[in-house]
């Protein structure tokens, strides 16, 4: 009986040590550096198409990094989440069960509250994320939507403009007609819209259906074939900000071709951002040997990094910026707008 007990205890110890070694990651006996990176992104729901493209971008970056440096072995762990409650449980699983130190996220609505979980544990969160006198805003209720409204609105009024419509909408609605009816009443010269993918296509379509013909302006996240497919002909004239195309693809000229061969679609802004994010994360992880404080400092020092999504500079607060141009939808395609 005593012998059996000892065998059970010994087995427990072996399993525990083995599991601990698994959880620790780091360098293995063969000299390969094991890197676990998580992603809490929307894989179902309204923003699933974005999550899918982020996943494709991360998977492509993983293949490229491992092909270039055989001493690195990357494990990507995906969890589905956009709303704060889903992101919170996804992060808790990634941190507690999978022991990841870097987590990529998309939805700002989930990213901001999740910092309370990741920061105390030292886990790094990465967010992939005209001349007119009267402007109106229609934006979704997220931190990004509110910030976009605030900063563009402030700049617009500083330049002498007037804001005649201000409509914040819940994340999960697709009927914007009454919000747009109110905006129409203010007779704006331009409408700034902060929405994504199919919901954005719906806003554009409903705007034109209501007979509102003023320019609609989106942002760098909107260069998305789903927007064009949902909005159809109504998308003509839709303007967005975008990364400078003269820089795109400079980071790795093969990325676009490799991505198209693998997935039969062109990489969008989300896939490109995710690709660059993983490249920067792995470089920081390898040089800091997984020390998250050191990685944070390294990432905040990134300056003029020529990625596939543009030239990236990250400031001391962790905000990434890129040179920007404007694009407009013409004949069903996004083309460069002005200089």
């Amino acid at each position, binding site marked *: 009986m005593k012998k059996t007990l000892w065998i059970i205890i010994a087995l427990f110890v072996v399993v525990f040590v083995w599991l601990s070694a698994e959880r620790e990651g780091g360098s293995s006996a063969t000299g390969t550096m094991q890197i676990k990176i998580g992603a809490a992104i929307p*894989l*179902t*729901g*309204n923003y*699933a*198409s974005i999550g*899918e493209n982020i996943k494709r971008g991360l998977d492509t970056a993983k293949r490229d990094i491992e092909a270039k440096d055989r001493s690195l072995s990357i494990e990507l762990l995906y969890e589905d989440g956009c709303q704060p409650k889903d992101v919170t449980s996804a992060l808790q699983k990634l941190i507690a069960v999978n022991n990841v130190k870097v987590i990529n996220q998309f939805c700002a609505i989930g990213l901001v509250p999740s910092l309370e979980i990741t920061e105390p544990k030292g886990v790094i969160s990465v967010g992939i994320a005209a001349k007119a006198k009267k402007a109106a805003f229609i934006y979704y*209720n997220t931190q990004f939507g509110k910030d976009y409204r605030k900063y563009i609105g402030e700049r617009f009024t500083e330049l002498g403009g007037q804001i005649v419509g*201000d*409509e*914040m*909408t*819940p994340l999960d*609605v697709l*009927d*914007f*007609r*009454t*919000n747009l*009816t*109110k905006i*129409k*009443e203010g007779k704006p010269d331009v409408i700034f819209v902060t929405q994504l*993918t*199919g919901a954005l*296509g719906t806003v554009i*379509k409903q705007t034109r*259906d*209501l*007979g509102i013909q003023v320019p609609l302006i989106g942002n760098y996240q909107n260069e998305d074939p*789903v927007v064009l*497919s*949902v909005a*159809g002909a109504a998308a003509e004239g839709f303007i967005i900000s975008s990364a400078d195309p003269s820089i795109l693809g400079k980071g790795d000229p093969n990325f676009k071709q490799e991505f198209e061969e693998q997935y039969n679609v062109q990489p969008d802004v989300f896939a490109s951002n995710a690709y660059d994010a993983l490249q920067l994360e792995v470089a920081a992880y390898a040089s800091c040997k997984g020390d998250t404080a050191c990685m944070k400092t390294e990432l905040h020092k990134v300056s003029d990094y020529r990625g596939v999504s543009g030239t990236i500079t990250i400031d001391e607060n962790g905000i990434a910026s890129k040179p920007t141009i404007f694009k407009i939808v013409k004949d069903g395609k996004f083309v460069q707008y002005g200089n």
Partner: protein
Amino acid sequence: MDIVPQLITNSLIAGSIYAILTLGFNLTYGTAKFIDMGYGVLAVIGGYSVFYFSKLLGLPLWLGALLGITISGLVSYLAYTFIYKPLRARKSSGAVLLIASLGVLTALQAVIAILFTSQFQTLSSLLSGNRIFELFGGTFTAVQLSIFGIGVVLFTVLAFLLKYTLFGKAVTAISDDEEVSKIVGINTDRIVGCIFFISGGGIGNIYGGIAGAFLLAFAENFGIWKIAGEWKGAITFGLLIMFLLWRPQGIFKR
């Protein structure tokens, strides 16, 4: 006040969509007496069937729509036959049926996501030349007009069916008392099965259901006239709570 005709139009459009869904939901709730959480996914199956047959296979839109109605009806009938009927036969509680219907919802949603991905799909390319009309200052499209028209036709047909046919009388009897209906010789299983097929198309009170659908749409759209749009959800559920507290029997008494 220029805005009022458009708000009325917006409310009528939203109300028509709610009313079409309410008709089927009300019908199953009235006869089978449980909250069928899986009901919403049946409408989605109809939509995806049209997408598959008319957009991917290129069949005419009317044929795609006909197949969509048939398939969603069939799925609803199968869910009743293989899941709800055995549960009802063993006198399972409403809670058990509700949970089973939640299972149906989740499972069918997952199947749709596997078959069609979770991405937005659109039929808009099939509806080229979606004309825009204006009436009394309210703007609406041909598709929106057709939603309203379909709502009116469905309501009229259903009201006629329930009032003037033997089937309708059987449905009314079952919704009043299923046990007594059985005793007087109504094949309740067959009738409820048919209802599930039609509801993938209640007689809680279809008039009340329709009134509720439009009341909700008007409250939502007029409610955010003077306040911000993100209050829509709060207005909807606030209205629901008020009804549960002060008018639990519904808009019209049965």
